[in-house]
């Protein structure tokens, strides 16, 4: 019945929300109670789910700032507006942070009182025996014949022994009275699991924060033969954490000896798709340490000096030699070609600031397997080096490098340069095969294509929080599983002596929280007790005029309940109590129950 009444109450939430006149202190208390209520937790959880979604709909700055800038340009109508709403930085935005911080405050406000209450519950005796066991969800009776010679007190003692063996905490009441009883409880670990789970989530959050504060990451491109040294200047790009100190960097080194790619030559659909990347590297933990040969692959990072080194990209680096007008070598070495399209179709920019008297520059494409269509459009027909080709335009003039402004090595600003070779000029473009040299017009110098090397892009990461995050996450899972699969049960047994000398035993079980195996447990207990007293568990209940006839007759078991409990031992679970059911009437009298808080 009590449930019904609650339904009515629930239908008018407004009446609950009316604020009585509270002082400021009362208001605070009220706000805190609201914040730490289960309903708020649920609301914040769902809000968190919704708030995470926009981050997958709009480009995010941390992932790729360039795309965000482009996106704002492409959407002049609302691009800026989205930015002011922090929709390009969802996961560090004020509103997203607010939601998860509130959630975690709510979590702490929830966990702490529950932990205290549960600690008390673990140290206190099982709750007092309810007046009417027959009202419990699982209930049954057993009758010990008079000639068995087991009085009520002995029956309660032996029941206590059995239950202790079964893992229950047992407390006997009124052993030598007319109606001795016992209260038993097990599964206190369920609540511990729940608390561990929620606490560990806080641990995960803190670990992530530590990573953001003290971690760092960076990128570097390494051509075969190149060596990376872990110092700030060694990086092409570096992202420090908020609290990063450059002294954190341990000066290890990684040299790329060789990089191999296997292309798929079997399946038709994926012909030419790379199926293996292997980088042979030589590493040194510090400048004086012995060199070590290692293999770096995708999904298989190197572990060095507290960082991890990942293979994240690759491409070709044509090796060129540029001579200036005087015939001096102005530039010699590999040039990293940036991937542009299918089959390693890549762009090349060569800047030669050392060329004299005028600086030289080249821009164009590198094709590992060059094909030219009838219309003169060239493309790469295969990712492997079958017919490598460099096609370049050339320029001379002032590169503007001396001004000191940083320039993108992959882009050439031709504003202040004069074209020397280009498709639309009489000189045409430059087309080079490996081993060939081209003499620039007007005696400006020459360029030779000496060969091709490969390069890799590596990411270097240091995250001091991630081990903690893993440990906390594993702890959380352990807590979760415990919380979901340990069942918390209370059990009471009461005995009494019938006028004719028979010893009457009644027992009742109550689950706290979801427990679909309560009926199974009841049946098992019944069997246990029956075999202890050499009874037939099937029929002992038939004559069930509950424990004591001296008590009110209305307490007798509803006829047939005992039957049903047996008839469908394991099916019965489906009719389990709902989690809030144990809030109902008499249970509330088992004061201090930790869960009483959660339904506020």
């Amino acid at each position, binding site marked *: 019945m009590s449930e019904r009444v609650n339904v009515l109450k*629930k239908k008018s939430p407004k009446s609950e929300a009316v604020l009585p006149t509270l002082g400021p202190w009362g208001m605070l208390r009220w706000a805190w109670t609201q914040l730490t209520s289960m309903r708020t937790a*649920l609301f914040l959880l769902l809000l968190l789910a919704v708030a995470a979604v926009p981050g997958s709909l709009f480009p995010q700055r941390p*992932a790729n700032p360039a795309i965000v800038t482009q996106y704002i340009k492409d959407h002049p109508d609302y691009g800026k507006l989205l930015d002011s709403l922090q929709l390009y930085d*969802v996961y560090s935005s004020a509103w997203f942070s607010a939601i998860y911080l509130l959630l975690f405050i709510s979590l702490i406000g929830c966990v702490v009182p529950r932990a205290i209450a549960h600690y008390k519950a673990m140290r206190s005796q099982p709750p007092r025996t309810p007046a009417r066991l027959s009202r419990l969800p699982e209930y049954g009776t057993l009758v010990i014949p008079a000639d068995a010679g087991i009085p009520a007190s002995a029956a309660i003692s032996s029941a206590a022994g059995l239950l202790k063996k079964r893992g229950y905490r047992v407390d006997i009441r009124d052993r030598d009275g007319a109606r001795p009883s016992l209260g038993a409880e097990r599964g206190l670990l369920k609540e511990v699991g729940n608390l561990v789970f929620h606490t560990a989530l806080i641990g995960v959050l803190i670990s992530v924060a530590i990573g953001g504060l003290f971690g760092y990451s960076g990128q570097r491109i390494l051509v075969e033969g190149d060596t990376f040294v872990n110092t700030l200047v060694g990086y092409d790009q570096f992202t420090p954490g908020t609290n990063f100190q450059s002294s954190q960097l341990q000066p290890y080194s990684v040299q790329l000896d060789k990089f191999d790619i296997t292309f798929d030559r079997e399946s038709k659909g994926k012909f030419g798709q790379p199926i293996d990347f292997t980088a042979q590297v030589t590493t040194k933990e510090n400048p004086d340490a012995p060199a070590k040969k290692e293999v770096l692959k995708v999904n298989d990072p190197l572990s060095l000096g507290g960082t991890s080194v990942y293979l994240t990209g690759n491409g070709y680096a044509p090796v060129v030699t540029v001579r200036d007008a005087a015939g001096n070598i102005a530039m010699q070495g590999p040039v990293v070609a940036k991937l542009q399209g299918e089959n390693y179709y890549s762009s090349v920019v060569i800047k030669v600031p050392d060329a004299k008297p005028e600086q030289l520059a080249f821009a164009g494409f590198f094709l590992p397997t060059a094909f030219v269509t009838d219309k003169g459009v060239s493309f790469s027909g295969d990712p492997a080096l079958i017919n490598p080709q460099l096609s370049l335009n050339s320029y001379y003039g002032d590169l503007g490098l001396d001004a000191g402004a940083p320039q993108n090595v992959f882009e050439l600003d031709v504003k202040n340069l004069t074209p020397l070779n280009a498709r639309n000029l009489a000189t045409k473009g430059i087309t080079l095969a490996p081993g060939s040299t081209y003499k620039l017009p007007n005696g400006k110098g020459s360029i030779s294509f000496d060969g091709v090397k490969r390069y890799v892009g590596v990411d270097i*990461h240091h995250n001091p929080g991630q081990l903690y995050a893993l440990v906390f996450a594993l702890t959380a899972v352990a807590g979760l599983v415990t919380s979901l699969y340990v069942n918390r049960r209370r059990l009471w047994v009461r005995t009494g002596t019938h006028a004719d000398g028979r010893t009457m035993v009644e027992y009742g079980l109550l689950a706290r929280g*979801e427990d679909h195996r309560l009926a199974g447990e009841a049946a098992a207990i019944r069997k246990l007790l029956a075999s202890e007293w050499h009874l037939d568990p099937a029929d002992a209940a038939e004559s069930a005029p509950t424990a004591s006839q001296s008590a009110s007759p209305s307490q007798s078991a509803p006829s047939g309940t005992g039957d049903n409990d047996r008839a469908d031992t394991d099916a019965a679970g489906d009719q389990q109590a709902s989690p*809030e059911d144990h809030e109902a009437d008499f249970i509330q009298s088992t004061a201090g129950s930790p869960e009483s808080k959660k339904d506020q």
Partner: protein
Amino acid sequence: MFPINETMGQYSELFMLLAAGTYTVAFIAFAWDLAKSSKMLRAVDLKAAELSGQATEPVRTPVGVGAGASARGVDRADAHLSGPVGRAERPTSAVSGGASAGAGQTADGSMRYGGERRAPARVAVALTVLGAAIHAAGVITRALGAGRVPWGNMYEFLTTGAFVAVAVFLLVLIRRDLRFLGTFVIGLAIIMLVAASIAFWTPVGHLVPALQSYWLIIHVSIAVMSSALFTLTFAMSALQLVQSHRQKTIAAGGADKLGFMRLVPNALSLENLSYRINAIAFVGWTFTLMFGAIWAEKAWGRFWGWDTKEVWTFVIWVVYAGYLHARATRGWTGTRAAWLSIVGYLCVVFNFTIVNQFFNGLHSYSGL
């Protein structure tokens, strides 16, 4: 690298087609069972009502054999009026309209097998087993053809995922009579197979290097299994909503327009079983998330980066965490929890289809 075996791949596709065909027949049998059994149940009910003649006498559920089992469902629905605490019906599940409201109109809440013979259902299950065997052959030949686990692109996620969904369904069937879900699960499996063959077909091939990791085996297999469980609970939650509505209507004296729902247990039983399955699936999804993070750390150097796929995996996790909370929050059990379970599943589907195909991220391995 293991050589690709194209012949095996062709066998695999043949098996997939055969499996889809067998499932189609099974689907028809399941649908036939729904139609036929509900007709039969109505007849039995009418007869029982005639015999007992009084409304106060709980009408025994005809499907339930275990007299005890079915009587119990009814008794309990009644009993809560007189008050045993633990047996009170969940109010939001809307069963409690009248004394025996909904009892006679729904199947046995224990979802145990009864002794009654439902020939079409048996045929349907037998066909499903046959289809699953052929389907298994399809999955295995695909794996042999490619020399690796058969879940490396959308085509394989779908075909293997459909197989796991059917297998999980059959496994649950061993212990519970969920045959009323047959049309749904088999229907879904057919859709997945057809979509795989038409929209996502990919020939057998090697994995891209980013997927060459044992984490692919661990992370994806757990994800697929959890998703299969979420599929079951989605179906049950949807039926729960319908059944809850129907029970309310009947309790209010309305006409029972959804006769086929007689084969389906009452809303509360559906809710309880789907909660238990969701709890398992949630643990699975937690592992999916964690192992995904560990793999991301190995492959990309950070365990969490809010990549679109990560975002949606997180959203799904939070929605189901919300579902578990809802089950412990007053006023949020029953219908609202069912909606959360449905929303969670829609997110799973969204994550699998739309995110895989249309959102660019590090996880773009759809193989398309």
